[in-house]
């Protein structure tokens, strides 16, 4: 019995020694993962406006990007204004076109949007018109992308706008009362409004919004 006990002890010790040998003969690789997701983010960079005055002495039409100080020689006539009315993260612009009439150079308000997202985005928009008169035949919208190499705004068709990080997108808006006036319809005394929602969604998914 004593002999059997000794044999068992020897076995245990032998197996232990084998285990130590095995433990020294291994290695491992650890993979640690950090996942940073991208973002789709459009921000309002700036807005610009147009103020129209009549020079009472020279009779000239004066356009200014900002309101001019009171001057008895200047008569305020019309304006296109844009205000950034963003609340929290809900980016919003309020545009007002006041007393618009046909001019050789349109009375424009514009907004420059900065694409701050890290995932490329595609731009689409919806719009609706409301108020006493339908302004849709008169509303002219032109899109531009800033070319940093040429240092120029390049006009771009709406259907093909894709934005990448730090791109600047400009939307010019103006009313063209001549549009229907040329067709013999009176564009005077119109009053109405519009709501335009510009969506950016990641570029490889469409259609959006669902």
């Amino acid at each position: 019995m004593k002999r059997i006990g000794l044999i068992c002890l020897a076995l245990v010790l032998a197996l232990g020694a084998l285990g130590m040998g095995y433990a020294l003969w291994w290695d491992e690789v650890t993979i640690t993962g950090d996942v940073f997701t991208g973002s789709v983010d459009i921000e309002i960079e700036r807005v610009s406006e147009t103020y129209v005055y009549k020079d009472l002495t020279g009779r000239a039409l004066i356009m200014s990007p900002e309101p001019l100080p009171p001057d008895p020689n200047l008569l305020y006539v019309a304006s296109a204004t844009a205000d950034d009315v963003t609340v929290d993260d809900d980016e919003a612009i309020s545009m007002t076109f006041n007393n618009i009439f046909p001019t050789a150079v349109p009375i424009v308000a514009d907004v420059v949007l900065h694409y701050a997202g890290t995932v490329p985005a595609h731009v689409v928009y919806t719009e609706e018109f409301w108020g006493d008169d339908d302004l849709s035949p008169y509303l002219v919208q032109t899109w531009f992308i800033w070319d940093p190499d040429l240092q120029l705004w390049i006009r771009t068709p709406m259907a093909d706008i894709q934005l990448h990080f730090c791109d600047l997108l400009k939307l010019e808006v103006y009313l063209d009362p001549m549009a229907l006036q040329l067709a013999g319809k009176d564009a005077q005394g119109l009053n109405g409004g519009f709501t335009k929602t510009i969506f950016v969604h990641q570029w490889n998914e469409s259609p959006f919004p669902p």
Partner: protein
Amino acid sequence: MKKIGLLCLALVLALGTLGVGYSMWFDQVVIEGTADTATLRLGIIKAEAELYQDKDVATVDLTFEGPIKAWECIVPPGAEDYAYEKLVVTLNNTFPCLTVDIEFYVGSAGTIPIHITGLAMDDPTGELTVVWTSSNEGFLYRTGGDPEKDRVITFYVINLVSSQLHGCIPDKADLILHVEQPAEQNHTYHFEFGVIGQQWAE
């Protein structure tokens, strides 16, 4: 059957999750705009007539028609309460050599300045034909007749062309009519005189 139901449920949940995922991957900017366009309206705001005759034979009536908007300016003194689109002048019991001076004020009854670019004279009945001899004077003669021998009324306009009107700044003009010898007795002549304006910057 239970297995198929579970599969459908899983599919619906998966699609729902996908929708939530997509809907979060967008951003938006809302532009809300209001707009109104201007109005260009010329209005007559005051008129007086003076007859040049030795005896009080002829008379004149002035009537305003088509109120456009209230005229709230303090100029010119004695202006009507409204700017009107039409002034009707009726001359009664006129005779050859009578001269009438119709003094009238026009102002901007719209919301943008106006540049007066021209004058118009017409007889809508076609009885008289208009001849302009310069930019502000002319005459009316019997249609089909001789322009000189059948001249009925000669007219002159003083001021107005090239004027610019805005706000409370109206302009005064005179339409002077002279009844000529060929005018018929016991007859009514009708004419319409117009002032043409356009927005000042064109």
